[in-house]
């Protein structure tokens, strides 16, 4: 059952991604609405698949790579829908939905069997820690997407040849504001994720710092975003620099997420 819902969600996201790319070239209010409808239906199906998997496994479905990428996509779509209804940003979908589709596709290709979790890791910390980490990282992903939009729009204005997407992209100010807001959401969540991770390590192994490569990387990510916020608040780094930093920040997350496999197995069992 969970497979069926997952595949359906994938199909809906795929369609939405196609429409969102078409939107870059020609758009109307109808195409945006249709795209959002597909995202929303896909999201509902996706939610059902995750809930069913939770029931099957008896724990948060974030333990193997298939589950983790799927749940990460779910968080991004959730944030996308919230942003879309709150700010109605033109073309945001075109920058987010292809990413969601790629994530879901990689999730679909990863092995899906439910593996038992080692007993010392079975605790309520699993849900708390991963939920915080995933939503925080999703906020950073959105911030990077918005950052790319900012850089494109900034290019149009600076080059003095505003054409193409210029009319349909939102203003620089709103992109910068949302980028900042997303980071102010993501940063405390990441901080809490690191703290809860340490507490979990303490309860499982009796040590706060029994870390692996991912823990180190999480701290690097945390420092990156600390720099983004610090330079913004103290030196007034905004706009282009903030956008670039938020993209760099998200790249470090992606390295943490996918790169670890290349560096050997760590305690984060799913990768």
């Amino acid at each position, binding site marked *: 059952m969970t497979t069926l819902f997952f595949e359906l969600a994938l199909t809906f996201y795929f369609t939405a991604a196609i429409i969102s790319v078409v939107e870059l070239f020609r758009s109307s209010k109808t195409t945006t609405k249709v795209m959002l409808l597909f995202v929303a239906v896909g999201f509902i199906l996706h939610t059902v698949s995750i809930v069913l998997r939770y029931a099957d496994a008896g724990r948060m479905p974030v333990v193997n790579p298939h589950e983790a990428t799927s749940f990460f996509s779910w968080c991004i779509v959730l944030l996308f829908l919230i942003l879309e209804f709150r700010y109605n940003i033109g073309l945001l979908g075109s920058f987010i939905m292809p990413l969601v589709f790629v994530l879901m596709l990689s999730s679909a290709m990863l092995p899906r069997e439910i593996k038992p979790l080692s007993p010392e890791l079975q605790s309520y910390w699993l849900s708390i820690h991963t939920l915080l980490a995933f939503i925080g990282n999703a906020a950073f992903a959105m911030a990077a997407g918005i950052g790319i939009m900012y850089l494109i*729009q900034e290019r*149009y*204005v*600076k080059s*003095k*040849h*505003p*054409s193409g997407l*210029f*009319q349909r*992209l*939102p*203003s*620089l*100010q*709103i992109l910068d*504001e949302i980028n900042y807001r997303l980071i102010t959401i993501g940063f405390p969540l990441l901080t809490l994720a690191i703290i809860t991770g340490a507490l979990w390590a303490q309860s499982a192994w009796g040590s706060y710092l029994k870390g692996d490569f991912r823990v180190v990387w999480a701290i690097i990510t945390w420092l990156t975003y600390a720099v983004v916020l610090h330079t913004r608040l103290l*030196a*007034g*780094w*905004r*706009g*282009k*620099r903030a956008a670039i930093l938020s993209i760099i920040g998200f790249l470090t997350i992606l390295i943490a997420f996918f790169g670890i496999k290349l560096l050997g197995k760590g305690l984060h069992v799913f990768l």
Partner: protein
Amino acid sequence: MNILVVGLNHKTADVDIRERLTFNGQKLEEGLRRIKTLPDVKEAVILSTCNRVEIYTVVSSAAAAHESIKNFISEFHGIDRSALETTLYAYEGINAVRHIFRVAASLDSMIVGEPQILGQIKDAFEFSLRKKATGILLNKLMKKTISVAKRIRTETKIAENAVSISFAAVELAKKIFTDLSSKSFMLLGAGDMAELAARHLANSGVRDVIVANRTYETGCELAKEFNGRAVRFEDFMHEMVHTDIVICSTGASKYVLMKEQMQKVMKERRQKPVFIIDISVPRNIDPEINNIDNVYLYDVDDLQGVVDTNVQGRQKEAENAEVIIAEEIETFQKWLISLDSVPTIVALRERADAVKKEEIEKLLNKLPALGEKERDAVEYMASAIINKLIHPPTTALKEDSEDRDILIAAIRKLYGLDEKGE
């Protein structure tokens, strides 16, 4: 019945001729009244703007009406007819419909996509409607015209991008800042072009306006006009720290703002974005400033470049608009054809009734002895005969068939409906 447009526009007539042919105020009412009295004219609307004067009419004979309208214009405005020959154009039938649609959609305007013309057409139509100068055909045509123009406005991007320097500046400002109402704006110097752009910005609701002019008094006057405040020119650098949009046109022969100075300002503003528009020629602001992060500098040529791109964009959209017009003409033509059958049916009926009446009278004259009952019976029989006879052609006319216009022509000829003195 035919639709006829006679008129001139900025392409066919110089401004001095256009001025002399204008129908304004009293002249409009008088002109409309007199056109309606021309022998071939049934309905009329006069459109008179600074770029065009056009008379839309429904006429019984296009050729005759064309002549009489030309004569009327020449006489009414006191212009020699020969002067009108080269400037006036005329369209009839479906070409007239196409022309009116194109004018309303602003495809025939000096600036393609400009929005005023539609309002002017609405006003012209409403005036004629009030003066009872329009009838079934023009009412339908003008309403259709307005809806076609609206459809083009929403379905194409013909009116989307700014095609004047000052509007282009406002449009750019809106892509840098979300909400202009929380932004402050400084006018540096007081050239005419700068004033125009400033007016557009002020109209789009900036929060406060600062004027810095070399002559402080002139600055004060301008500031009063914009509900702003004036500062001494020497102090403008200090004001830059709190200003989000600057329009500069000082007439100075060298740069009044250098890159290093702007870098200092940006530091003090904590990198908050600034949009600077340098309208002065020669330029007053170091172009290098555009390379500073969060500073966006546009000079006159840059803005003109934006305008040129937008004009090209509109011309491309105009092609889409022509497609819509072709579609709408087709539906209007269908309506025109359906309308044609109605007068024919009416004429056929009238013809039959006239014959009936005539023949009954003749009969009653010959047989004066008939009683009330017999007379009724005769009348009833005559009605029954003509009803039976004209029923099939009436039904055929009402049907929406391919060859209806042929049928209409045939019936008119066979029953002699177009002959006079019936």
